[in-house]
């Protein structure tokens, strides 16, 4: 055995842990969890019962859905991660956090960012890139606060009183480094105004960078930090050592290296080059092994303590969370197989998959961790074990209802989309038919969500009563520790486990390899397009309409990517090409089809059809669940801002001529007048809709597939 304890000069010091910061993050986790769950419930109701959109622009599904995802990921899961990291890091490194001031700046800065998101997203300030919707000032704030967190964390590593970095710390390092890289690269954008910007990437580039980010946001925000928490809190709660430290080493490096490559599986069968799709699929399949390595390590930590799953509600939550991790990471690679993906993509199967991970893995692990921490930090016992158990069973029932209903919905819709009769015609050519079939399942999903929220309310009640009985004396925890910093510790990887800086650099290299190889070739892709395949840029009015489309979050229900699949082509037209979205900043390929694909909707219907459809979709499609967009009838087009938008687009490489940039506002007004006159000639009873946003969005929709 290598010597790990010999030290020349060892002194004993008393560590006083900063528990106030842990308490603050617990409060924030609970508060934002309630917000995320409530908004999610509203969104679920809106899909089942469209009047729940309330005809208010701030509360339509297109604006609420990004609010829900951001709240769930960054507010609920984010604060949960910080809770666990601030608590476990101090103990694992046997030191107080590097700086109390930085801890507090991190806490308050993060909450302000969430508040800014909660205000700006319903107001329609959105970049429409999933989980990266927030506009550029908030992006900068996220970067600054993340750097504060990183300085505080790595500062703590620098002043640690133990040589060895436990495996949980490795996962925290990977999280901090990778999230920084992902956020900065995906958020490179040129501001047009104080709350609007265009990304530097366009079309297929934007799609690849976004899903490299989107997939790895799941990997490095919802997986690696939670694995770190698992490696700390499961042994703690079970009072058992982790099953295999060896496995944790192999698990860590394999996961970090492989995960970063898997992003393109979100773009299978699309116009993304096949080599990138294949790469994404193969690496997704490879992820099976490290993911299950982690799950097995987590579950087998309970060896010899399985009886606690029956008796201890904390273990119930943790063991179920790890099980859901295993299920999600089995389902993820399965969904990445091209043929399976052709059935599942754009359907609710993906929603089921995501919620199995967030509600089961992230949610239950967080609940287990908080139930473990509250009595320890407030120096008391949980008020009621019975309520904890009730929370567990209600929550689990809620997840199962959610999961199963969305599986059924996704597979039903996927099969209906591809059903072709003996003459080669679609069996369900009317898209709304496939929607009506799954609406009952949306009600089941709503009940599942309501149950999950009910369980959470019980948790709040239980914790509230626990706080009430906590002793008045809340002296922070202390520990006498010997400094062991100057020891030598092993060779090879054992040595690496004690070298924080080298370890961090290696993690950085590991995540950079896949990123560079996938992204760099795609950045030059438009150069290879034949001249005759190129499309014209959007007219100024179409561009204005496109920005409204982005603002209203139309992409959350409508894709603009006809896949190279026979049934997609039969339903929507020829497959989308790279050229067709080459000026799309941001890209609007979407990831879900609650409504039909719009890539070739241009010219399919007259302007009046679009007008009536936007004002009240049920006038055109009786069973439609789309919200009404009546306010587009009153809001005026922002002609003044158009010149700036066009000049930014030109700066980014869109071939607008000088005349268009200089007189974009006048050109847009002229085109809008043309649409207005045509509508008015067909229906003289129309009110004064001259220069209103509905004209711009009609111009945009009519341009899709027609440029």
């Amino acid at each position, binding site marked *: *055995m*290598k010597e*790990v304890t010999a030290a020349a000069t060892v002194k*004993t010091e008393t560590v006083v*842990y900063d528990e106030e910061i842990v308490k603050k993050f617990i409060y924030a986790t609970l508060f934002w969890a309630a917000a995320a769950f409530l908004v999610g419930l509203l969104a679920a109701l809106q899909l089942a019962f469209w009047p729940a959109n309330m005809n208010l622009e701030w509360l339509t599904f297109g604006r609420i859905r990004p609010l829900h995802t951001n709240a769930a990921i960054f507010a609920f899961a984010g604060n949960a991660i910080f809770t666990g990291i601030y608590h476990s890091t101090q*103990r*694992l490194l*046997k030191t107080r956090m590097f700086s109390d001031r930085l801890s507090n700046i991190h806490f308050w800065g993060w909450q302000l960012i969430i508040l800014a998101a909660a205000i700006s997203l319903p107001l329609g300030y959105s970049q429409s890139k999933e989980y990266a919707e927030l506009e550029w000032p908030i992006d900068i704030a996220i970067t600054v606060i993340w750097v504060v967190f990183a300085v505080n964390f790595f500062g703590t590593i620098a002043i640690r009183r133990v040589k*060895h970095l*436990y495996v*949980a710390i490795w996962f925290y390092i990977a999280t901090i480094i990778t999230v920084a890289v992902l956020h900065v690269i995906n958020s490179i954008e040129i501001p047009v105004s104080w709350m609007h910007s265009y990304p530097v990437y366009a079309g297929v580039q934007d799609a690849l960078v976004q899903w490299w980010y989107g997939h790895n946001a799941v990997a490095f925000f919802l997986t690696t930090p939670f694995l770190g928490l698992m*490696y*700390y809190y499961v*042994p*703690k709660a079970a*009072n*058992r*050592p*982790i*099953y*295999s*430290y*060896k496995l944790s*080493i*192999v698990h860590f*490096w*394999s996961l970090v*290296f*492989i995960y970063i490559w898997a992003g393109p599986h979100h773009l299978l069968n699309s116009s993304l*080059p*096949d*080599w*990138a799709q*294949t*790469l994404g699929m193969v690496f997704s399949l490879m992820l099976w092994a490290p993911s299950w390595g982690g799950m097995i390590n987590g579950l087998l930590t309970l060896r010899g303590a399985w009886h606690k799953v029956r008796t201890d509600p904390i273990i119930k939550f943790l063991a179920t969370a790890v099980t859901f991790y295993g299920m999600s990471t089995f389902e993820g690679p399965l969904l990445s197989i091209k043929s399976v993906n052709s059935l599942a993509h754009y359907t609710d199967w993906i929603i089921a998959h995501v919620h199995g991970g967030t509600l089961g893995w992230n949610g239950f692990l967080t609940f287990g961790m908080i139930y473990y921490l509250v009595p320890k930090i407030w*120096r008391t016992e949980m008020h009621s074990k019975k309520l904890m158990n009730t929370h567990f069973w209600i929550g689990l029932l809620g997840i199962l209802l959610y999961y199963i209903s969305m599986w059924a919905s996704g597979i039903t819709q996927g099969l209906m989309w591809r059903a072709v009769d003996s003459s080669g015609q679609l069996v369900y050519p009317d898209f709304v038919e496939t929607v009506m079939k799954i609406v009952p399942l949306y009600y089941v999903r709503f009940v599942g969500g309501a149950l999950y929220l009910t369980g959470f309310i019980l948790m709040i009640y239980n914790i509230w009563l626990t706080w009430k009985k906590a002793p008045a004396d809340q*002296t922070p*925890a*202390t*520990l*006498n*520790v*010997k400094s062991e910093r100057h020891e030598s510790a*092993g060779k*090879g*990887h*054992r040595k690496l486990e004690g070298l924080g800086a080298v370890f961090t650099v290696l993690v950085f290299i590991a995540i950079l*390899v*896949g990123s560079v*190889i996938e992204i760099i*070739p*795609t950045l030059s*892709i438009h150069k*290879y397009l034949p001249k005759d395949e190129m499309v014209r840029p959007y007219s100024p009015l179409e561009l204005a309409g496109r920005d409204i489309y982005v603002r209203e979050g139309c992409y959350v229900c409508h894709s603009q990517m006809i896949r190279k699949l026979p049934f997609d082509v039969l339903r929507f037209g020829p497959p989308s090409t790279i050229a067709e979205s080459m000026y799309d900043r941001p890209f609007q390929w979407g990831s879900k089809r609650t409504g039909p694909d719009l890539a070739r909707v241009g010219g399919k219907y007259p302007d009046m059809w679009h007008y009536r459809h936007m004002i009240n979709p049920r006038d055109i499609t009786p069973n439609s669940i789309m919200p009404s967009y009546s306010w587009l009838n009153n809001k005026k087009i922002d002609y003044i801002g158009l010149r700036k938008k066009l000049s930014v687009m030109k700066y980014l490489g869109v071939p607008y001529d000088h005349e268009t940039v200089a007189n974009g506002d006048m050109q847009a007004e002229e085109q809008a007048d043309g649409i207005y006159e045509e509508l008015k000639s067909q229906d003289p009873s129309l009110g004064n809709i001259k220069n209103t946003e509905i004209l711009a969005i009609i111009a945009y929709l009519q341009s899709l597939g027609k440029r």
Partner: protein
Amino acid sequence: MKQIALSYFEHPYLILIPFIIFFLFFIYLLITVMRKSNVNVYRELADIPLKDEEDDNNEQPGK
């Protein structure tokens, strides 16, 4: 088909280089962690979460 699939990427074999690097690193990891001499070390390290609140002065751990 192959030509179409690779038409936007001139050097697909470059992908193999990082993959080989990872594979070699993976093999190195396996050999390292499976060494018999490391068995006791890793057993001790697996206990870290259970011992991180143990007081080095053998006093009662902080509350």
